């Protein structure tokens, strides 16, 4: 009955069939959702951060709820890139899921190793470099908060792979635009923003940190205004596309990010409360576009200047 709407967006050289992706670390490897909806309908799935070797992750407790948000210090628990390529990716390919592996390392060399390993695999759409994880002792914010360091990682990965490279920005960089521009110059195809912002939660009764790692990354709706601001700033500072993340739970949230300048969005924490969240965001976006007779691509950065 209703004509199909052109939902696709261009993220650099990649055309995503729609702008709704899942955020790294909040959707497993894209295989846990089979029963809830068909993940292949999404614009893409960013996997849990992959490292060269498997990682067990941090000691519990790892998560704590805060006002309209949560802290996490998972510590990048993951199966390792090898197991991902051998055990997860084949299934994802078979299911036609658009896969964007999120990769994490503590050295430039390991970033390169990860990129090179994934470059050999069919069925990978782009790589997302996590240079902004706040929950690891090394290699997290060090890379993401310093323009030169972020550029170094980007350049090295760029050289090691033919895949599009997305670099994930930390909200803790003093000058995020400088980091973004440095990555752009170093060959990034897109920026994703934002990763979590470090916070702590305290149990006043026990007088203890609520999270074993002490600090954790804040995610969820609490973060949305900050994420929107950073996406807005970044999208005006660079020419490459910016992918928006932070507190997106509804289609309306996603539209706000597109208006602020994002070319696509990622749904993160919202999937915890509602495993259908990414799918609902997509459906809602489509309805909005029909109602307002507009395409997602036309929404990008189309905020009236006031």
């Amino acid at each position, binding site marked *: 009955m209703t004509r199909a709407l052109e939902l696709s967006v261009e993220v650099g050289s990649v055309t995503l069939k729609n702008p709704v992706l899942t955020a790294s670390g909040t959707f497993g490897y894209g295989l846990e959702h089979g029963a809830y909806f068909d993940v292949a309908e999404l614009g893409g799935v960013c996997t849990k951060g992959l490292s060269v070797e498997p990682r*067990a992750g941090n000691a*519990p407790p790892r998560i704590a*709820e805060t006002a309209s948000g949560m802290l996490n210090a998972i510590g990048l628990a*993951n199966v390792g890139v090898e197991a991902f390529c051998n055990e997860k990716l084949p299934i994802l390919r078979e299911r036609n899921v658009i896969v964007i592996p999120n990769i994490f390392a503590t050295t430039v060399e390991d970033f390169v190793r990860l990129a090179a390993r994934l470059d050999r695999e069919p069925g990978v759409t782009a790589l997302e470099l996590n240079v902004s994880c706040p929950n690891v002792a090394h290699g997290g914010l060090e890379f993401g908060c310093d323009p030169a360091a972020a550029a170094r990682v980007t350049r090295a990965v760029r050289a090691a792979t033919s895949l599009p490279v997305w670099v994930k920005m930390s909200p803790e960089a003093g000058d995020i635009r400088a980091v973004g521009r440095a990555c752009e110059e170093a060959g990034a195809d897109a920026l994703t923003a934002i990763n979590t912002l470090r916070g702590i939660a305290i149990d006043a009764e026990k007088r203890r940190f609520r999270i*074993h790692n002490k600090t954790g990354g804040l995610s969820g709706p609490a973060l949305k205004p900050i994420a929107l601001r950073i996406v807005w700033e970044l999208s005006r500072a660079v020419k490459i596309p910016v992918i928006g993340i932070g507190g997106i739970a509804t289609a309306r949230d996603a539209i706000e990010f597109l208006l602020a300048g994002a070319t696509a969005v990622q749904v993160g924490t919202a999937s915890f409360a*509602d*495993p259908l969240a990414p799918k609902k965001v997509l459906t809602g976006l489509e309805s909005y576009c029909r109602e307002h007779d507009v395409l997602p691509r036309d929404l990008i950065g189309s905020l009236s200047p006031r």
Partner: protein
Amino acid sequence: MLGAGPGDRGSYGDGASERFDARRRGDRSATLRRPPALDRAGRPRYAHGVPDLGRFISAPLVKRTALDAGYHVLQFGLDEALVALPGQFVMMRGEGWGTAPLLPRPMSILDSGRELSVLVKVAGVGTARMASCPLGERFELLLPLGRPFGALPAEHTAVLVAGGVGVAPLVCLAERLAQRGTAGVVSLYGGRTARDLPLVERLAASSTLEIATEDGSRGTQGRVTVLVERLLERARAEGTNVMLFTCGPHRMMAAVAELAARFGAPCEASLEAPMGCGYGVCLGCPVAKKAGGYLYTCVDGPCVDASVVDWTREVFA
């Protein structure tokens, strides 16, 4: 007293399935148990039957019963009957919660079918809202989740060890065992006081019940572990085999696990851990294994072989 009931037979197959595989996390190479066999619809077959696949539904609160001491039974009206097994849980969240509380709360399934019920103890903001929520308010429910309790081996007596709100999955288990004609099920139930024993009648109706309260206001004075130890000693003396199923505070379960190990009795514990998602994607619910690495409570548990857990490591802050 401790005559071994016929018991359910374990029904874990040995073929790893894609679906199950997908649920395995990185560091779980030394997986606690072999994955269960699948039925034709791809659903795992557990000791007590084949549960529904997980689904995400909305249902209204249709009844709320306040029990003593801050416990409440909440009942939801489901459009379709739910098949869940003892030990499985639901992630639930009021549709009116907006963005705070943000995350759904895990609750053991007490009764399934068309009328899902859970036993809630007020612990914080989410449970407080549940306990005072008006009838008719709709909740989002993701269910059934997690691994249920495992099989009672042949020639073993089931001994259920409950502490406080941990009684919910054990009531469910006791009733399931009774329904299946498993004889001789014993429940040991501990609380601080007599008021601290929610659903004690249901446990009494479906098993042989012994009670311990710390203040002695009902049953034996002392901790429930006193009853466990006494029972295990008697069983040893009588030469009967016992399997423990336990749910309650971490320390209580740790003590039960320790006793089980000492007496060589198999023991399953229903773990509690903070949960973000309940279905394996946030990695927020680890419980340390003795062998190193972690179990993820929501997908490897909540019901696990107690001997695998490193009970000395904390789960909560």
